[in-house]
């Protein structure tokens, strides 16, 4: 297979995901409305309750709205990653997943393309959210908008890979509600998206430990630091390791010879 074949495949999968996204405008708006409600209503209400002290990467006291913005960007990526998982299960039920899996390129590459396509859409949503937040006086340095791109890509890939892995477990679309209750909400709330970790530590050490090992916490911190032109090596390393584990497990899950799909359906006689 030539390099151009690989590139055309990636391009085709991204275009398809983009077209589906355009056809489902409701998905775009709901993806935006969710974090905006948190920003406009929740953050405004909690501004006076939750004071934020000076913690890196911030160099001064900040409003609560400013603190939760990276967490809400992470929320977009998290929901999109899970949406990709939903879309994979849907594709499998509708059969279009078969078309992808019987094409001649290696399965790991096809799944990575699918992942990148989902992340491209999520990054677009994240930038639209940041643009709207700018009008809400959430104004990181201009360079931060550029520096955050690789952070969004990395965090999006990690969360998308988790979605991909989950989709290899989920047999039917109806089972997806469980993902909402057992993955999205715990990951979001047990993280540094809404409150800094030191506040959580003050409240509960076990919860602090859970938050510290939650990959979403580190995805949010990578985004937070990048948005203010800073770099958090520990969080980045954590996200990279999580990405490798999730993607590796997802590829294993979709491998016809070894994966979870085979265990559910059957195997050699």
């Amino acid at each position: 297979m030539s390099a151009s074949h690989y590139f055309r495949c990636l391009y085709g999968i991204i275009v398809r995901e983009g077209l589906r996204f355009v056809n489902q405008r409701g998905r775009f708006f709901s993806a935006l409305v969710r974090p905006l409600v948190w920003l406009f209503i929740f953050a405004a209400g909690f501004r006076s309750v939750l004071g934020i002290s000076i913690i890196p990467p911030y160099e001064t006291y900040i409003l609560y709205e400013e603190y939760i913005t990276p967490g809400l960007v992470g929320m977009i990526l998290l929901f999109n990653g899970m949406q990709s998982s939903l879309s994979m299960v849907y594709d499998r039920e509708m059969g279009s997943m078969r078309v992808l899996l019987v094409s001649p390129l290696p399965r790991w590459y096809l799944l990575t393309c699918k992942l990148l396509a989902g992340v491209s859409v999520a990054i677009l949503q994240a930038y639209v959210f940041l643009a709207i937040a700018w009008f809400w006086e959430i104004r990181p340095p201009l360079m931060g908008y550029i520096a955050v791109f690789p952070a969004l890509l990395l965090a999006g890939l990690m969360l998308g890979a988790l979605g991909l892995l989950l989709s290899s477990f989920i047999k039917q679309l109806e089972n997806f509600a469980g993902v909402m209750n057992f993955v999205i909400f715990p990951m979001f709330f047990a993280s540094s998206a809404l409150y800094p970790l030191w506040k959580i530590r003050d409240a509960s050490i076990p919860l602090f430990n859970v938050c510290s090992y939650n990959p979403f916490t580190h995805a949010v911190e990578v985004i937070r630091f990048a948005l203010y032109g800073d770099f958090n090596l520990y969080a980045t390393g954590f996200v990279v390791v999580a990405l490798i584990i999730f993607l590796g497990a997802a590829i294993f899950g979709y491998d016809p010879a070894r994966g979870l799909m085979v265990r559910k359906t059957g195997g050699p006689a």
Partner: protein
Amino acid sequence: MNESVVSENLSALEVSSLSFRFPGKLALDNVSLSVLTGTFSVLLGANGAGKTTLYSLVTRLYNTNQGDIKILGHDLYRHSSQALKQIGVVFQRPTLDLDLTVLQNLNYHASLHGLGGSEAGQRIQSALARHDLSDFSGKKINQLSGGQRRRVELARALLHQPKLLLLDEATVGLDIQSRKDFISHVRKLCSEEGVGVLWSTHLVDEVQNSDHLVVLDNGKVLKAGVVGDVLAELDVDNVGDAFSILTNKH
């Protein structure tokens, strides 16, 4: 693979001693069959005989280490890419993106097979014309009839010019006329373009005397051969009777 070599009725698909088990059920038991390029082979079996399982193995959606599958001489498990490149598939259940147009669906498939630019454009236009779909290229799939959708699936399956075409109960859900049109269209492609066709069905009226027949029942191949020869051997004059005799014997 040299084009001129392929045109000499080579083995497009060679399945040897293939077995596969679902939890609690042996779905395929030591199945062997072959499909030559330019021939129309019918895999005849009742529902649950193992036809779709066989297709899933031949397309590598499932995997097994019991038995061999070769496509145009390429081992499916050792040289997956080379083997899968040669296959076009129409699955039992529709696999088109309903929200995308015919053209967008075909473009997507072309990109998965590394076709791009003017080459993809030309092939798509020619496929649309050949399958009488030119007028529908801008229509979304969910606006098409069942027969038209099947033609789009067929056009898509042939876009990358495979040498082996697998159709798994491809006429399910079509009315009588659409079914007739569709099967005669596939037969024409088989004879004119030298594509090896494996057509699975449970409908005996889709079988013709010149076809190569493989009767599958409970995961086992009961009989294989040219239909005329099978009928003569069993001393019956139609495929329905032959099928009854074979499956009752079993």
